[in-house]
């Protein structure tokens, strides 16, 4: 294998001494150069690996502006409707001079946040949007667009979440593309058998970036070296547990992010856990060991009670951006399964916590898959292995835990039954080794242990 492209030095090696802001700026400048002013003969794709909260969205907005300023018409591919709406909202606020087309399915209306801007046009036919500077839609919708009017330039957002077969269907629409995503998040998945393609460079069920890099060895991924979201208490753990070969650091130092409760603790375990999290950034609220059904009623109640107390105790989140009260909209609950999310939502509603965004500011309760790319001040996580008698590949998947443990700016409270470490030891990963498939590091088993070891330093027992 030979690399004909430009070699991208590891920003941490070269710029380890630089202040985080400067290191990040250098990385971004290099990426924008490669995207907007490609050298002759440069590969057709630019890949950017971005750890959680490293300014990926900001990068997409800047790249979009510079490309449009350079006279390009641009298509943007994101993976879910909410990602598209978020991106439209952000792009429209940051670049009011740009005309933005939001291409949507005929039976799915875009969110109101995306439509409130004067420079956004939403249509379900691409023909009505051809005059726009930028057209944004989901990969699923782009697949149906006929290729009569190919765009020259595309940005693929959350590219590691995109499946190879989706890229196969949309790649005909553009000549060059910027692929941005987080390699540590959940891999795309399918519920049907795909073993016969394992090891093929274009395995349709693998990630789009894996296929792209296999067929275009000249592309060297760029990296964003600084997480602006994760606090100093979380970045080193997330970096070493989930990104062992591509480390990153936090943009803020120890003590720059604090949480101050306005109401004193009532002596309960839940309040103790909240204090621990406010103090150290992490807390493990541990229930007695027990095998339970997926919607473990006691664990669900503990999660809901934690959220209730978080809101009741009038916390103030102080960060480099100023200080703000911790309100429902800044709190999220993450689970592994949809029925768990539904059970937590029902329990929160019973406790009078707002959970319906249609009725105003609400706590977000969702699965890891849907929390990807989101950011909150405090997260409460129902541990994927809590109460389970076995540790399946689904529950061990590195990305799932990584997503759940890296959504917060201030603190993360994990609710779990005791006995997870023992469960892990009883279930070493036994996935078959497939020829031609690169072994993924770290494996979920090891990452789970790393996170658990850290959490156990902040354990509060709930009897």
């Amino acid at each position, binding site marked *: 294998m030979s690399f004909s492209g430009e070699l991208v030095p590891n920003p941490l090696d070269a710029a380890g001494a630089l202040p985080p802001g400067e290191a990040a700026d250098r990385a971004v400048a290099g990426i924008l150069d490669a995207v907007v002013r490609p050298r002759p003969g440069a590969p057709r794709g630019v890949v950017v690996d971005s750890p959680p909260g490293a300014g990926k969205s900001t990068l997409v907005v800047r790249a979009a502006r510079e490309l449009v300023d350079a006279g390009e018409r641009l298509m943007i591919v994101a993976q879910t409707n909410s990602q598209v709406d978020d991106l439209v909202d952000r792009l429209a606020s940051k670049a009011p001079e740009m005309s933005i087309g939001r291409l949507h399915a005929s039976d799915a209306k875009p969110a109101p946040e995306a439509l409130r801007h004067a420079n956004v046009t939403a249509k379900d036919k691409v023909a009505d949007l051809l005059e726009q500077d930028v057209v944004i839609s989901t990969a699923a919708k782009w697949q149906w667009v006929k290729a009569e009017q190919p765009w020259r330039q595309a940005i693929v957002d959350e590219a590691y979440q995109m499946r190879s077969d989706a890229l*196969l269907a949309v*790649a005909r629409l553009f000549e060059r593309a910027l692929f941005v995503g987080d390699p540590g998040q959940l891999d795309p998945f399918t*519920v*049907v058998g795909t073993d016969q*393609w394992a090891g093929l460079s274009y395995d*349709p069920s693998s990630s789009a970036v894996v296929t*792209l890099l296999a067929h275009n060895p000249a592309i060297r991924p760029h990296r964003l070296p600084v997480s602006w979201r994760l606090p100093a208490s979380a970045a080193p753990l997330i970096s070493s547990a989930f990104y062992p070969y591509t480390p990153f650091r936090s943009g803020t130092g120890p003590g720059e992010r604090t949480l101050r409760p306005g109401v004193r603790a009532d002596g309960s375990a839940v309040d103790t856990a909240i204090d621990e999290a406010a103090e150290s950034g992490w807390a493990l609220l541990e229930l007695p060991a027990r095998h339970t*059904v997926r919607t473990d009623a006691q664990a669900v109640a503990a999660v809901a009670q934690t959220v209730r107390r978080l809101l009741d105790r009038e916390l103030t989140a102080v960060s480099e951006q100023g200080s703000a009260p911790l309100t429902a909209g800044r709190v999220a609950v993450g689970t592994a399964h949809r029925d768990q999310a539904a059970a937590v939502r029902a329990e929160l509603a019973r406790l009078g916590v707002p959970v319906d965004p249609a009725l105003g500011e609400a706590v977000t309760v969702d699965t890891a898959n849907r929390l990807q790319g989101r950011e909150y001040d405090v997260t409460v996580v129902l541990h994927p292995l809590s109460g389970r008698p076995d540790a399946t590949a689904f529950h061990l998947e590195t990305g799932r835990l990584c997503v759940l443990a890296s959504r917060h700016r201030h603190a993360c409270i994990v609710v779990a039954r005791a006995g997870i470490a023992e469960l892990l030891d009883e279930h070493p990963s036994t996935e078959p080794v497939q020829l031609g498939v690169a072994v993924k590091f770290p494996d979920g088993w090891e990452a789970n242990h790393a996170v658990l070891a850290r959490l156990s330093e902040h354990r509060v027992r709930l009897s």
Partner: protein
Amino acid sequence: MSLLSTLARLEAVRGQRAEPLATVRHRHLSDRPMVLVPLAAAGEAGAPLAVLLGTDRDAPRLHLVPQPLNRTQRSEFLAAMAADVVPYLESFGEQVELLEGSEKDPVSGEKLPVVRELCADAPQLVVPNAAGVAHLALLGRSTRFRRTAEDPDPGEYPAPTQVPLLGRWLTHLTDRAQVPGSSMLLSMTGLLARHWATGQSNLEDQHLAARMAWHLSPSGLEPPATGAVAAEWVESARDAEGLLVHPPAGPSTDPKFDERVLAPAILRYDAAVAVRVRAEGSRDAAESERAAGLVERARAELARVLLAAALPTWHDVWHGLELLRELPPADHLPDRWEGDRWSFTMHRDRVAAGEPPQPRRDDAVTAARKLAQREREQAKLEIQEALDDPLAMAERRLAGEAFAGEVVDVVPEWSAGRSPKPRPLLVVRTGDRPHADPGREVYRAHAEPAQRAEIVSAESGEVVVRLLSGMGRRKDPEPGSVPEVGSRVVFTLFELAPRQSAPLPEPADTPWTHGGPPVVGEDSPAGADEWE
């Protein structure tokens, strides 16, 4: 594992009997299935040892490779197997239905009427377990590129015409078996797992005889029993010589059987062959005849021990088919079987048109198309099983993805606007707790035509929905289109028609991200034999 199947497993443990997971049969069963019990030789992946096959339970036919390392004998085995299987498969290609349709003329763009053939029925192969399917896939891969005497360059070892044909059929069938809900090639353990729960782990359920022991007392067990005791007995009971009383379902054989029975029998066969070679050299007619008799006897002895190793499994498979036939067929079976018939017809046409065998590996576009098809069929299967089977729907209801109940009130309302349309409210009393937020769209099961509704409110015990469609074009709903007070309704939160898959490019238009168009011929080297 869903809550309901966990419960069924617990009940199976308590009763020491298999517990139903379905009230109807969710897979098509042919009137004339062919059962195959393949056995593989140890030490080499996919090396055939024997196969017991047939469409008649009382008349299984055994094909075997007396010396599994001998490539000539392996070829003869495959030829004999092909001569048995291919006519069975091809016999379904004769009776066809003619379907009228239209096709776009690629030049003028006009729609032209065409008549297409659809085979009236399709073959069905049943093997004991998933490993049996994998073994057939290996046989298919290793035979579909074999050259025959009819090839322009037949090579040194031309195979009978039917051998590569068998390979192409096995490749097609094992590929089709990956499509959820398809029934052309089925494994008995898979069939039983869909319809019954046992009180043992999924891994143990892969052992066909152990699984059957939760249904019927295994033959030879005294006193007769079902459940865990019986399962353990068929898995592990050995006779005085240390051989398993009930041989495993294959393709791998019991190592003790290999060591104590099979290896000596093969050795005797080899010795007999050596004697025959020497006798032929001596030109003594009587000696040659005696040697030929020795070989014949050694071969018959091998056939006897291999038959004994496969026959219990053969009976287990037929017992399983009997159990499944007792279940009434699900309503959507003909619909899914038609998909299998199309798959069969299209492969028949490809063979008849002289197309080359399936390439060694799928190209990027073909792989993506197959994945899309499997996902579409998986979605369809889940919907159809829920509609066909109250137990399958109960799982969805327990998961909050559907709710069933009685209509206790109907409030006629209309949409605003110049031509008001009926938008009646239904109050449904239900014990289910759907994950239904107001405004969420739901779909009425078994409604003809399809009917959508939206959740207005969902309190515990009572869900109010507003019907949105399927009530005709007039101001008042068509008679019978709105459920009456007292009737039972089921609404699902999942759509009842699977979504279409998005179009993919032609293989020749494979984009740069996926390596560009495939190089023709790279993956299907004509005449390359994987064994030689």
